[in-house]
């Protein structure tokens, strides 16, 4: 495990998380959530949790994002916060 890499990804993860809940467009929020999941997946791969990383890549970054997007597609993209 390379701690520099670890640290960089951690920072990116946090940035993605904060961005996801602050962005004014729900579609962007959904996509940012996907990015967040994917970064976490990288993080876990670095930490040696390969199975978790694999699952997070498929479930978190893949299907969850699809679900979020399709839900946003059926509701609205607008939000005030």
């Amino acid at each position: 495990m390379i701690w520099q890499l670890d640290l960089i990804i951690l920072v990116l993860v946090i940035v993605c998380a904060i961005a996801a809940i602050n962005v004014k467009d729900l579609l962007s929020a959904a996509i940012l959530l996907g990015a967040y999941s994917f970064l976490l997946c990288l993080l876990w791969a670095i930490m040696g949790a390969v199975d978790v990383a694999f699952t997070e890549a498929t479930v978190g970054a893949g299907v969850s994002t699809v679900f979020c997007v399709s839900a946003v597609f059926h509701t609205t993209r607008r939000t005030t916060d």
Partner: protein
Amino acid sequence: MKLIGKMTILLCGILLIVFANKFPEFGDPHSPASTHLSPYYIEHTMADTAVPNMVTSVLADYRGYDTMFETTVILTAGLACFFLLRLPEEEEKEIYFRHVPTGVTIRIEECGAAPEDSDVFQRIDAQWVPRDIIIRSTSRLLMPFIQIFALYVVAHGHHSPGGGFQGGVILGAAVILFAISHNLRTTVAKISETSAAIMSAAGVFIYAGTGALCVMLGENFLNYGALAPLLGTDRVMARSHGILIVEIGVALAVMSVMIWIYYNLSSAGKQDEGL
């Protein structure tokens, strides 16, 4: 409300930080977490189950009972989405057709004289968008590879990262990709909601049924060793095979539930025709 929320969060955060200071060193090989229980799994996985991937052996054997319910959680989610969203068939529905040669969309309000679904008149859903030939062809091209890879992930979970969950999700994702690149109606025609639902129940049933079979053979629930006489192997290999069986069940369940949830979420329960 916001202020209370912020206060709570601040309080929680401070508490968490204070107590996190008391954790053992990060990655310490001598922490209780690494010395109490886990060495058993690491050292005995081969001898007990003949599965080199400890995550798989712990997941599907030592803590196989957890995993069965994990699969059930997924099924529950599928049922829940169906139960919450699915709309019954509307009395007066509008049907959309597309005249393929001209590209004209026809809306029929009373289902009186609807044309047959044919090459000329194609039935479409309300949210039909003209499809992009490139996307459609590419995804069609990709699908077999995705599916084969998924099968590999399922089957090779004993030896490499992967297993029923990951494989199942990938399989489901392949179908979802098809649904996105084509449209829901075409996908539902290939895998109907009913079959998705029945397959997801069947997937969990394979898992739980394997366990129940072990009980019938006089051993504990999910003790795959009991299957040895049926599979014609010794008890250790029977465990390995048992894990494979349940992984297949998991993959089936996860795949179909993912499809099922997607059907309901992406159409807000309409799926263009009621139950």
